[in-house]
């Protein structure tokens, strides 16, 4: 009963139930069945947890094909954490979507396909299954982004489609080179062969000789055996990098995440980009690509800072959040690239925390937009007295993303600063924190008390009330954001046990709630307030209008893409 393949099969079964709902009249029953799969997945994850913590047999061959071309799944610590995150956020999003008429059973079909794809990406044990799952995710995501059939949504979906399809072509090229040079697709065997390559340069020649049918291959790269695998690594990174949306591949994200339906935005920003990050990290680990880490650290820091600059300039509330997703991905990437025992746990903690608070923010903002019928954050108006729940949820999210204690953003930012200790890249992240605080002061105007009844409400009179389906996810996510911050020490220890380096036994966790940490947060907060007034000044507003007007076209973006590939190829060379 505890096979991890059930984590992929359950959502597929759920999507089947959703389709059945189109045929039989019992729609409520089908919805309930479709949603009960999340409970089933949670049970599987719970039963697997002891095994994962003990580090016992973590590879599962599918269909009993143990030998190498057979497909296997890996449920180790990082994969467990990632799938638990996927289940949690998708469940919140599914509940939130329940009482809207536009999200019918077909919507749940695509949602559950997306969940199945994400689970498959984090659990897969071979590189081609990863490609297929990435494409399942992509197709479901394109449809969901364009779900409301607005012009903006359709165009955003199309732009995302072009970019990620070109990216996935490179991924497939990388798969080809891996198969040609290493003769395998399984992560475990790739890791072995790459290790052989690293330890013994003589193997380089032997390996290409060992290639299954050497005499018949007339490859262009034949003269450089072993070197072409570096290009394969770069191509794989670029293919996933488009989904992960760091600079220079980020340009599709603001539009796609801003114009998707609100719950879909929460899902995309919350877990979808994390999923591709987890995949990227697995590939880097399999290829022993530690030489790329410092580049990732710098790329992440620059991404964080540049994206927060763009976020400050936005007046569209959802687009502001979307730019922050890029910025926070930069944080995660920077943490993952740092050379420290804490780097991986810090990255994973921040990934989880970001999923929690960004899911909360997108759902809360989405509901505010739904109530008022207005996206511009200056025109949504203060909602504090009209809807205390949304105001409180927004406030929790904003405090958390700004790294104010005792919310969970504070915890993971402390871990990241510990991991990046002494590195010059940390200055960029520190500046990013100031920018983040400033832009969330800007967004927090929605949470101000304000008048009890403003004119905008009359336009969407029926949307006033909060149904249980809206309240439950907001409350659960708010509570989680707070609890994972207050109990930050125990929480980080748990993450460490799952993703930390097992060879490091005596590990010293940074003390979280200490006076000097608080003063640091206070300085960031004060500088953030100063920056906020700077941005809101007439000069700042003019600059902001200029900056937010810069939107690269598809052709330009694809050219960035080629540059990105070149950059990664240089970084991957060894």
């Amino acid at each position: 009963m505890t096979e991890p393949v059930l984590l992929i099969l359950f959502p597929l079964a759920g999507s089947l139930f959703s389709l059945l709902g189109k045929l039989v009249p019992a729609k409520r029953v089908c919805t309930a069945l479709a949603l009960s799969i999340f409970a089933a997945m949670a049970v599987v994850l719970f039963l697997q947890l002891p095994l994962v913590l003990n580090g016992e047999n973590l590879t599962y061959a599918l269909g009993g094909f143990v030998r190498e071309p057979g497909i296997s799944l890996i449920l180790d610590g990082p994969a467990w954490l990632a799938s638990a995150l996927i289940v949690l956020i998708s469940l919140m999003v599914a509940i939130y979507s329940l009482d809207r008429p536009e999200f019918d059973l077909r919507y749940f079909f695509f949602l559950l396909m997306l969940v199945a794809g994400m689970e498959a990406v984090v659990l897969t044990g071979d590189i081609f299954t990863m490609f297929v799952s990435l494409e399942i995710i992509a197709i479901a995501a394109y449809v969901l982004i364009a779900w409301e059939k607005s012009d903006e949504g359709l165009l955003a979906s199309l732009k995302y489609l072009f970019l990620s399809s070109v990216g996935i072509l490179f991924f497939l090229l990388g798969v080809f080179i891996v198969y040609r040079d290493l003769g395998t697709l399984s992560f475990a065997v790739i890791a072995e062969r790459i290790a052989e390559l690293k330890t013994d340069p003589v193997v380089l020649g032997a390996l290409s000789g060992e290639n299954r049918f050497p005499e018949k291959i007339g490859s262009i790269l034949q003269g450089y055996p072993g070197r072409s695998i570096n290009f394969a690594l770069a191509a794989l990174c670029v293919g996933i990098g488009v989904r992960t949306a760091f600079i220079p591949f980020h340009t599709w994200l603001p539009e796609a995440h801003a114009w998707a339906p609100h719950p879909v935005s929460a899902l995309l920003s919350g877990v979808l980009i994390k999923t591709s990050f987890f995949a990227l990290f697995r590939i880097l680990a399999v290829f022993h690509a530690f030489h790329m880490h410092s580049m990732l650290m710098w790329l992440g820091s620059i991404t964080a800072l540049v994206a927060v600059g763009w976020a400050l300039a936005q007046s569209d509330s959802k687009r502001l959040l979307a730019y922050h997703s890029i910025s926070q991905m930069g944080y995660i990437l920077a943490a993952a690239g740092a050379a420290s025992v804490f780097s991986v746990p810090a990255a994973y903690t921040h990934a989880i925390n970001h999923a929690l608070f960004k899911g909360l923010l997108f759902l809360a903002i989405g509901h505010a937009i739904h109530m008022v019928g207005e996206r511009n954050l200056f025109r949504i108006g203060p909602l504090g007295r009209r809807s205390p729940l949304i105001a409180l949820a927004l406030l929790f999210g904003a405090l958390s993303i700004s790294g104010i204690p005792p919310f969970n953003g504070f915890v993971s930012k402390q871990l990241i600063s510990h991991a990046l200790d002494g590195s010059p890249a940390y200055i960029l992240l520190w500046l990013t924190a100031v920018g983040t605080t400033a832009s969330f002061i800007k967004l927090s105007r929605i949470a101000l008390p304000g008048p009890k009844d403003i004119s905008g409400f009359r336009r969407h009179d029926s949307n006033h009330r909060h149904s249980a389906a809206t309240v439950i996810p907001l409350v659960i996510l708010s509570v989680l954001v707070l609890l994972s911050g207050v109990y930050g020490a125990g929480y980080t220890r748990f993450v460490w046990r799952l993703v930390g380096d097992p060879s490091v036994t005596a590990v010293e966790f940074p003390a979280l709630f200490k006076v000097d940490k608080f003063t640091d947060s206070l300085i960031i907060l004060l500088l953030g307030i100063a920056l906020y007034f700077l941005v809101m000044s007439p000069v700042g507003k003019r600059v902001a209008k200029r900056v937010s007007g810069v939107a690269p076209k598809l052709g330009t973006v694809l050219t960035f893409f080629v540059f990105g590939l070149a950059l990664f190829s240089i970084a991957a060379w060894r």
Partner: protein
Amino acid sequence: MTWYLIGAIFLLGLWGVIGLKNLVKQVIALSIANSAIIMLFVYYASLSGEDAPIMDTAGIPVDPIPHALMLTAIVVGICIVALALALVYVLYQRYGTLNMDELEDRIWKADD
């Protein structure tokens, strides 16, 4: 020679996606680039033997794995192309243009 030809087809498709100004042509170019990758796998596998990978063949059977992989990749590629064309079609019905730059200008600039 064949390797270079496949490479040329791939680059042609890539250039089409980046450089052309007609969305339908760009989708077709994407499909061409995808086909080039598929040919790459299939051609590589075809070098590995001389006979179909069926039990009891006389000659050396070719490696069947790339073929199996490419069946999946072809199906995925078709889904992407179909979806892309559907999106392009709806946008064309609404705006009467197939130029991505023009669409981006008209749809996203209109919000500010």
